[in-house]
């Protein structure tokens, strides 16, 4: 599982720019599904055909990042954020563009108080000496994500983009390991989740499934002085009760809880007070779609050092398989 996570988190796939990660996932799954298609927004939809219930499984491919909006005369790049990035988490980070260009994120020297830090006072330095040189490797509109390889330490993995490449890894694993079932399953790797759950809604509209289960990360309450939250790393995947975008359908929740109980898979229940997830747009699409989610407990979400338990991720895959094969 770690190798798959390392591979998937390594790809650059800032929201709206999911080409590279999508291609990587296609290569992983193409021998295990009956049909693969990419829709107008870029969602990757892989189908295991059958005559039974239509189930949609969703994990988002995109990650947060930065977009170049201006290149100054001296070759420094100004940027906008794509998705929810903390300005403080960004200071001193390396970011990587799709073509391999790496930049250092820093802030204007004259800033006296960190409280006044704004993205408009920050820039990316790619080591270019002027605008012309910078434009050889980067153009306006290009996006970059945090750089850095996934690291395994004991049971924990530290990486950028565990949100939601760890979910993608779970779905890829499920595609490979799923036994024969009567259900027709649509595995959807969605786009633009970080910009407002956008891809999941259009994918759900074209699939019109009977039920949907998303796999994404959730926050935890197990770090020093953390916000109170029951979810902890290493205690098993979480079954979502609600977040800011969805109250999960009781039957989907029940299905997941029963699958966990029956198969002895450890699980926790998740109530996420901030943030939304793909079921938020899926459940109100096309007349309404019962939706739920399996969440991977993850510390420091949206930072370059997202941290999660490999055992939780493994168990999330087991839980997903048990839930959708029935």
């Amino acid at each position, binding site marked *: 599982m770690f190798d798959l996570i390392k591979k998937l988190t390594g790809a650059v796939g800032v929201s709206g720019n999911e*080409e590279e990660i999508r291609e990587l996932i296609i290569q992983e799954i193409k021998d295990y599904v009956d049909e693969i298609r990419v829709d*107008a927004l870029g969602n990757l939809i892989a189908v295991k055909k059958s005559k039974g219930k239509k189930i949609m499984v969703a994990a988002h491919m995109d990650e947060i990042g930065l977009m170049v*909006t*201006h290149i100054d005369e001296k070759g420094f790049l*100004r940027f906008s954020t794509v998705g929810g990035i903390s300005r403080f988490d960004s200071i001193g980070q390396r970011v990587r563009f799709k073509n391999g260009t790496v930049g250092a994120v820093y802030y204007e020297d004259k800033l006296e108080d960190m409280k006044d830090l704004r993205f*408009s006072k920050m820039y990316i330095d790619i080591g270019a000496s002027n605008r012309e040189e910078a434009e050889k490797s980067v153009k*306006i509109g290009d996006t970059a994500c945090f750089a850095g390889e996934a690291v395994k330490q004991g049971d924990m993995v530290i990486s950028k983009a565990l949100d939601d490449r760890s979910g993608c890894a779970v779905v890829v694993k499920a595609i490979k390991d799923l036994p024969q079932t009567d259900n027709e399953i649509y595995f959807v790797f969605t786009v633009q989740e970080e910009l407002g759950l956008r891809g999941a809604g*259009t994918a759900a509209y074209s699939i019109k499934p009977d039920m949907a289960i998303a796999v994404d990360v959730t926050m935890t309450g197990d770090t020093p002085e953390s916000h109170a939250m029951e979810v902890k790393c290493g205690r098993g995947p979480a079954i979502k009760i609600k977040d800011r975008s969805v109250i999960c359908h009781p039957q989907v929740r029940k299905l997941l809880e029963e699958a966990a109980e029956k198969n002895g898979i450890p699980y926790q229940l998740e109530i996420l007070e901030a943030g939304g997830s793909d079921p938020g747009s899926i459940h109100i699409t096309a007349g309404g779609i019962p939706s739920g989610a399996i969440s991977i407990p993850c510390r420091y979400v949206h930072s370059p050092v997202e941290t999660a338990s490999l055992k939780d991720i493994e168990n999330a895959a087991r839980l997903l398989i048990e839930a959708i094969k029935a």
Partner: protein
Amino acid sequence: MLLKELTELNGVSGNEDEVREFIKKEALLHATEVKVDSMGNLICYKKGKSSEYKIMLSAHMDEVGFIVTGYKDGVIKFSPIGGIDERILPGARVLVGDKKIPGVIGSKPIHLQDKEERGNNIKLKGMYIDIGADNKEELERLTSPGDYIAFYSKYTEFGDNCIKAKALDDRVGCAMLLEILKESYQFDLYACFTVQEEVGLRGAGVAAYTVNPDLAIVLEGTTCSDVPDVNEHEYSTVMGQGAVLTLMDRTSYPNKKLVEFIYNTARENNIPVQYKKTTTGGNDAGKIQLTRGGVVVASISVPCRYIHSPVSVMSKKDFESCLNLVKKVLDKLSGDASLIGSFKD
């Protein structure tokens, strides 16, 4: 160019009738079929030589404004409709209701304000509209709660090819769209004049659902902040530097291949073009992009300084750049219709 006529009409969100009637009359001269949907969107269909592809062009008819909420003594209390910077309001001239009763936005005079009030901006709740009435009875005779209120501002040409008007956002789009309707293309064209953009992109999604297009381009008036005391990297757009393409905003991430195609089309034809450097704000593309199974979208806009005010300013040259660019793009898509399907990933 019908900008004078279009900007002097009133069409505050939810009350687009006057604008719609004017556009409808013009559109009927060129469209194959014209329909108004239940929300008030005006959908003008122009049949193409082939019906294999449908392209939707949209511009919103509505503008920001106000609504009468009640009365206090001899003046009108009001609420804003759409995003308005309240600091620009004191002293603004307005027209109230269908009878277009002239009024002015007033507030407590400066010599009666205490020290603290003077140091701060007057808040919206401290403002009122004065239509010269003596008392509440007269106000009630002339107006009614729920009456729409629009900025009053004459279209004026000045300076080097510049225009001052209210509602350039988005009558510039409407004016371009009416020009485009005169053309005929290989594909089916749906020119959609949408409603209620300023209160949350409400009409466009409904129109896109009905049209179910293969590709959509939104024509807009967008912010322009190339003014003193703004850093160059914070300029959203620059007046006079041509048609504006959106890379990303709060509501949409336009299709990259389509945006690049439009940018290249501009360069090939020596049409001034620029990218919008800020990613705030949003427009109808956001709703259209997410309609049904997803739609390939892009936005082409005219830079407008002091947008959402009675004195928006734009350059006629930018308008020409935008219109030329849209035409060239449509010509190219018409010349090779297979391009239309090629932007999907």
